[in-house]
């Protein structure tokens, strides 16, 4: 039973690699175009980070957070979201798939619909956001005097991965709604793009309703603010038990992945094509 599950999972992974590989080869046919868009994406997103630096040029702190600490939050959110965009964008662009009834074709193939959609819009030029977030993290390391213990360094990629899973979960839920609405669901954009901006600044600056929304409904604070309190050694960390701060990203990602997975399965069962 377990063996069969693992075998199916491995098959899905290799399928994902085949799909992504073929997309990569087709994108590399336009090498100059690819490079230009990658560089432009990187430079363009740098304006976001520049905005933070410009504001800290005139304001010394943001409710007690330094520019390096905000750069850390920003970098963390950018890398997580960038990875989700890179690996799961097929779900972000799902409305188009539904509108053109292309999902019919996906269902006809004797392979996992989830993997097919997941790999459906893999574009390597989206590396720009990840590079940009990494640069911001580099600055954060340089500008803060955090003691980076081996535990913290090992924990950082875990937080990033949990963030990625959470964002892909948002994409999947947004896509699932399309089974009923057909049209794109703009609210999903508020949560993904808006959520990334939200997670780039310390949680307490926001209105308490927004704080609760992004903690309990859309648990973004658990992959950004709370683990950052622990990682940066912020004084607010003493308000919470350490195990809670450390475990919260894993719990939030696991729970959200489960919800998204169940919703997706329910949606696929209820799919009615737009084709006549």
């Amino acid at each position, binding site marked *: 039973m377990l063996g069969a599950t693992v075998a199916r999972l491995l098959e899905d992974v290799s399928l994902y690699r085949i799909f992504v590989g073929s997309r990569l080869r087709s994108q590399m046919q*336009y090498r*100059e*175009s690819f490079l*230009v*868009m990658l560089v*432009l*994406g990187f*430079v*363009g997103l740098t*304006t*976001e980070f*520049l*905005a933070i630096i*410009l*504001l800290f*040029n*005139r*304001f010394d702190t*943001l*409710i007690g957070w330094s520019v390096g600490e905000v750069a850390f939050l920003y970098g963390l959110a950018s890398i997580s979201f960038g990875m989700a965009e890179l690996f799961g964008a097929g779900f972000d662009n799902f409305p188009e798939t539904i509108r053109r009834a292309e999902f019919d074709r996906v269902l006809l193939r004797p392979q996992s619909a989830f993997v097919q959609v997941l790999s459906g819009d893999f574009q390597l030029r989206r590396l720009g956001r990840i590079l940009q977030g990494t640069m911001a993290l580099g600055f954060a390391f340089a500008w803060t005097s955090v003691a980076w213990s081996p535990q913290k360094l090992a924990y950082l990629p875990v937080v990033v991965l949990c963030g990625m899973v959470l964002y892909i979960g948002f994409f999947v839920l947004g896509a699932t709604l399309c089974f009923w609405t057909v*049209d794109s669901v*703009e*609210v999903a*954009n*508020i949560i993904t793009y*808006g959520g990334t*901006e*939200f997670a780039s*600044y*310390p949680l307490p*600056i*926001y*209105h308490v309703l*927004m704080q609760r929304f992004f903690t309990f409904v859309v648990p973004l604070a658990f992959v950004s603010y709370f683990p950052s309190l622990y990682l940066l050694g912020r004084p607010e960390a003493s308000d919470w038990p350490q195990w809670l701060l450390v475990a919260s990203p894993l719990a939030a990602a696991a729970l959200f992945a489960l919800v998204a997975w169940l919703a997706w399965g329910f949606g696929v069962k209820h799919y009615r094509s737009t084709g006549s």
Partner: protein
Amino acid sequence: MRLYYEIARRSFDRFLTYRAATLAGTATNGFFGLMRTYLFIGFYGSQGTVSGWTEGDALAFVWLGQALLMPVFIFGWYDIALTIRSGDVVSDLSKPFDYYGFWLARDAGRALYHTLFRAIPTFLIGALLFRLSLSSDPAHWLGFLVSLVLAVWISFGLRFLANLAAFWLLDHRGAVYTLLFANGLFSGLLVPLNYWPDWAETVVRTLPFAGMVQIPVEIILGKSTGADLVVALLFQLGWAVGLMLAGRVVLALAVRKVVIQGG
């Protein structure tokens, strides 16, 4: 003139059909407005005035910025580039109207729609929820309206030029993409120019982008008065006309280059 009025009206009407998108877009602008509001409240803390602006000024800027970004269209705009790519541009160029005027009229219709149905509702959300410092002088509001029209014209001039790049570049996205980010940064939308380091502010204020957000906002905040207000409007007018002339020159060069498939 009648022709261009009809083109603008058709463009306005075309946007009227997208009601759900308008509602969703306003919600998005409102949400981003909220986030940026709390960001500035957090930064100001108990400080009174920073770089010449109070917290109320900063909040007014946030909501004016969210309101203006649709009429002034800070986003990627590929309408002309796509016709160049598809070849439809040839039929547009051979129609008996002024090509620049045709697209400007369409953009005017779009801008009016976005002002009425996106900018005003978005601004009202902010004005109802927060205390925004706006000028109470009617002359400043009148100046703002003129400034807004000029801002749209400048924005159109830049987008027109970036789109014409598609005549020379096979990938039509690069130039528009570059413009998109320059728009956000140098217009003051991301960070108002008065918060920039003095040397950078001096440089950026000479660019056309300053006329897209920073200048209209300063006028309605009551920051530029009397002769300064007139100079600000003339600055915008100068760039709008300059970009129009540049657009026409580049268009003339492009038309000479056009080779129509099949003869």
